[in-house]
Structures are given as C-alpha cells and as structure tokens.
C-alpha cells in the first residue's frame, strides 16, 4: 500500500521538492515567527533559574521609552539614506566606465571585481588597520599630500562614514556585476541606431541604457537596501557601536542586547521591528520604481 503511494504520479514532484521546501520553511520562515513570538516574552534569571513570562507588548514599550533605541533608529536611517543611493550611483558609474572597449578591459574588469571574493570580515579587519589613526596606510597616504592625520573609526564624526566606506568598497563590485551583466544584454543595434541619429553619450544612457536596465537596477536597489539594513559585521568587529553610539545601528543594538546582556525580549523586539521596516521600505521602492517605468519608456 505504501509502495502504491510513491508510484502515484501526483506525489512525485512533491517528493523532489520536499527537502528544500521543508528546509526553507524550517530555517527561513519559522525563525521569523519565533522572533515575533519571543519578542512578547520576558526572561528573568531569579536565583539561577530561568523564568519566562508572556508580557504582551511590554518589551516594545520599554524599547520606545528608551532614548538609546531612538538614537539607534536615527543612525540606521542616516546610514540607509546615504549608503544605498551612494552604492548604486557608484556601481552604475563604474559599470558604464567598464563597458568601454579597451585592450585591457578584461584584466581591468577582473581586478575591479576583486572585492567580491574578499569576505566582509576580511575587508573589515584589513580596512580597520588601513584606517588606524596612528599607523594606518590611509593616514600615511594622506600625509603625502600634506593632509593631517584623521581619527576615522575612533571619532564620533567620522566612524559612520568610515564604515560606509568599508561596506561600499566591499559592496560596489558585487552590485556592479549585476549591472554589467544587464548592460551586456542590451542589443548593440540600439546604440548603433542612436549613433546614426546623432545621439550624444548622455542621451544614449538616458534613453537606451537606463530604461532597459530598469529591472536590474530595481533588483539591485532592493537587494542592496535589504543587505545594508542588517549591516553589523564592521560594528561587531571594529566599533562595537561606538564611539558614543555613533555607529550603533538597530541590527547591532539587537545583537548587543542579546549576546552582551542576554536581554532576548529586547533583542527580538528590535529584530521584529527591523524586519517590518525593511519589508515596508522594500515594498515602497518596488511601488515607486514600478510606477515610473511607464512614462520613462515613452
């Protein structure tokens, strides 16, 4: 009887699908619900005994009363507003530069793609030493031009910018790869026709490249935003959220609440808020960029 079950046609695709689907549900979907559920629970350690109690939205209430949370939200907002357009513009500009024909273009492209192979922790450690205020290469190099040494990561004013620089060094090559692949897909006939019509380079970009690259740019924008929203590796390794909370983004605050202070209710409240905000931001971008598509093509 069991044997018969497996011989039925309709089960076959589900059997093939089962391992990956179950793993996706268990390790991608279920944790989101764990996060939401546990954010409603308060854990206390009275006399060495862990005591869990369901407290409705008390964790959130404490969070909203905490100036540290609002400071952290502010830092996250600043980071999001600056880093995403910056990275997209830079990778788009670089992709355009690398579409140019040259004898060395293959080598140049390969070298530009190098940071893709360098993991973020490596980039963070190496850049951390690069930006060392006393013995770092960055200040050594600035000194050649007579610029005084900068404090970079140990300064309240420069730390967030330094982290933006590190994440951008690592990220731009990755996003550019998608834009380059998208640009290569555009038929060259379009550009040849535009050339015959006397189009200037900017017009070619504005009326051919940009509209046809829309889907790729949209994908890159959404994926980049989602990635940077949980950017915390440089903070974990280098700044620990400081100096003076200046790099304490929400993702890191969640990490710190959980792993430094064992305050899991707080940690998972922040994670849940982060997940909800990022879904809204991604939804808005899809809506906004999706609407504009119509008039651009005309």
């Amino acid at each position: 009887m069991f044997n018969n079950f497996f011989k039925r046609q309709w089960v076959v695709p589900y059997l093939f699908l089962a391992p990956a689907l179950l793993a996706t549900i268990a390790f991608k979907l279920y944790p989101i619900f764990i996060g939401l559920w546990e954010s409603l629970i308060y854990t206390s350690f009275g006399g060495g005994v862990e005591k869990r109690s369901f407290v409705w939205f008390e964790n959130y209430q404490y969070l909203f009363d905490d100036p540290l949370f609002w400071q952290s939200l502010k830092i996250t907002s600043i980071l999001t507003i600056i880093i995403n357009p910056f990275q997209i513009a830079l990778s788009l500009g670089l992709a355009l530069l690398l579409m140019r024909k040259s004898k060395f273009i293959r080598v140049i492209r390969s070298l530009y793609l190098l940071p893709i192979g360098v993991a973020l922790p490596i980039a963070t450690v190496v850049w951390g030493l690069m930006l060392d205020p006393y013995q770092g290469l960055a200040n050594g190099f600035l000194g050649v031009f007579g610029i005084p040494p900068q404090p970079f990561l140990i300064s309240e004013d420069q730390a967030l910018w330094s982290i933006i620089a590190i994440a951008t060094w690592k990220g731009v090559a990755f996003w550019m790869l998608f834009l380059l692949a998208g640009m290569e897909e555009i038929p060259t006939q379009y550009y040849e026709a535009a050339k015959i019509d006397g189009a200037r380079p900017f017009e070619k970009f504005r009326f051919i490249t940009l509209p046809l690259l829309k889907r790729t740019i949209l994908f890159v924008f959404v994926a980049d935003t989602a990635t940077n929203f949980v950017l915390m590796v440089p903070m974990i390794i280098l700044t620990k959220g400081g100096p003076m909370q200046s790099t304490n983004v929400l993702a890191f605050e969640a990490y710190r609440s959980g792993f430094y202070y064992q305050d899991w209710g707080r940690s998972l409240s922040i994670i849940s808020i982060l997940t909800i905000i990022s879904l809204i931001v991604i939804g808005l971008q899809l809506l906004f960029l999706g609407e504009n598509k119509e008039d651009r093509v005309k």
Partner: protein
Amino acid sequence: MIKHISKNWSIYAWYFIILIGLIITIAPFWWALASSFKDNVTIFAEVAPFSFWSMVPGTSLDPYYGIFQKGFGKAMVNTFFVSVVSVIGGIIINSMAGFAFAQFRFKGDNILFGFILLSFAVPADAIAIPLFKMMRQIGWFDTYYALIIPMLANGIIIFLFRQFFIGIPKELMEAARVDGLSWFGVYWKICMPLSRPVTLGAGLLLFVFQWESFLWPLIAAPSPDLHLIQVVLARFSTEYAPIWNQQFAASTIAGLLPLIFIYLFQKQFVSALTGVEQK
C-alpha cells in the same frame, strides 16, 4: 584636428579615473599581502611617514607560522569540512527542487516557487538571532548541524537548476520513462550528468557562501573547536590587536582561496550569481 585632441582627452580621462579606482580597489588587499611577510616594526615604519616600500612584499614567514600556532589550521580544516558538506548537500536538495519546478505542473507550483524565491530576499543576518534561539531549542546549538543544515536550501541555486533543466529536451526524458526509468532515475542519470556547468557554478556559490560566512558561525557555534575561518580572523583582530602581521597573514589565507576559485571559474561564477549566460 580639434576633434582628435578631444577624443584623446576623453581616453586619458578614462584611464585616469580607472587607475584611481583600481588603486582604491586593490591597495588594501595588496598592502595586507605585502605586510603579511614582514615584522610589525617594519610595517609601522614604512607607513608613517608613507614609503613606497610598504607596498613591496617582505620575505618573512614568521607571521604565517604564528597564526598556525594560534589554531588557524584547525579553523581551516573546519571551514573546509563545512564548505564541502554544504556544497554536496546543497547541490542535491536544490537541484531536486529545481527538477520538480522544471519538470512537473502540480498544485501550487507557482505559489511555492514564488514563496521560495521571496523567502531568500530576507537577508540571512536578519533571521540569524531567531534562528539561533531555534537551534538552542532543538539542541543543535554549538554543533556542525547548526553550521551546515540551515544553510543548505538556497533560492538562487534552485532557480539556477530550474532554468537549466527547462532547457533539456522533453523527448529525452519521455524516452527514458518509456524504457522504464523511474523519475528519480531520470533526474539522477539523465539531467544531473548534463548539468555540469550549472553544478560547477552552484557548487562554487555554496562554497564561497560558507567560506565567507561570519555572523552565523559566530553565534551558532561559539566553542573554539568549531570555529570557522572568518570567526578566527575576527577573534585575532581583537585578541591580538597589536600583532598586525598575523592579522594580515590570516586575511591573506582566508581571502586568497575564494579569490583563486572565483578567478579560475569566473565565467561559471558570474553566470551563477547573475543568472546571465556569459560569453
């Protein structure tokens, strides 16, 4: 004549911008590589004030000797083990799912495909903390299971295999079915052997994902016996902060291996990542 000059000017401007970009892209890693063969006094002396020699590799192997005394070898072995098992397991379960989506029409196929793709739009780091709680509940915390099993299913790779399997002629599979081959036989004996390029690309992606993973191994497997390479590197940078040359040596080893793989199989890697066939 004027046109000629202006054209040259634009080429020079292009080379100039490209060169500056190249310096910013390569200098950090090159400096790390060059300094990983020097003693710390030399590194510091060559940087401030800046000297050209800071970019010339030294000859000392002591930093490398030093990191292997600090347990770097163990981390490399762990990372190899976790990466290789992930590549094998990941290729099997994702290609099977890709086969299901490419080969069959079934109830809910579009919804399930959309669900899988969408669930991978949520960044892994966002669910790392709840996933960590889950590992504690099911007793996988601080084991190889936690490092490997949650990382196996991958939407990008399911998508890659689906795209490839759609391109395989249906007649081929129908003929095999008529000859009495089971569906699993069709998948394993006909489709998988044909999909070598996509398997290579997918394997490379899975390998690099694991080799570069940091946050998950950091929180899911804190005991030193299970440390992976990125975790050890980050630990060096705090525990042995003044020993720069060893941090550079660890960075060089951790960074070089994926770089070599990616450059050897650049075509397959880029195709796998972007989903666009490379010429």
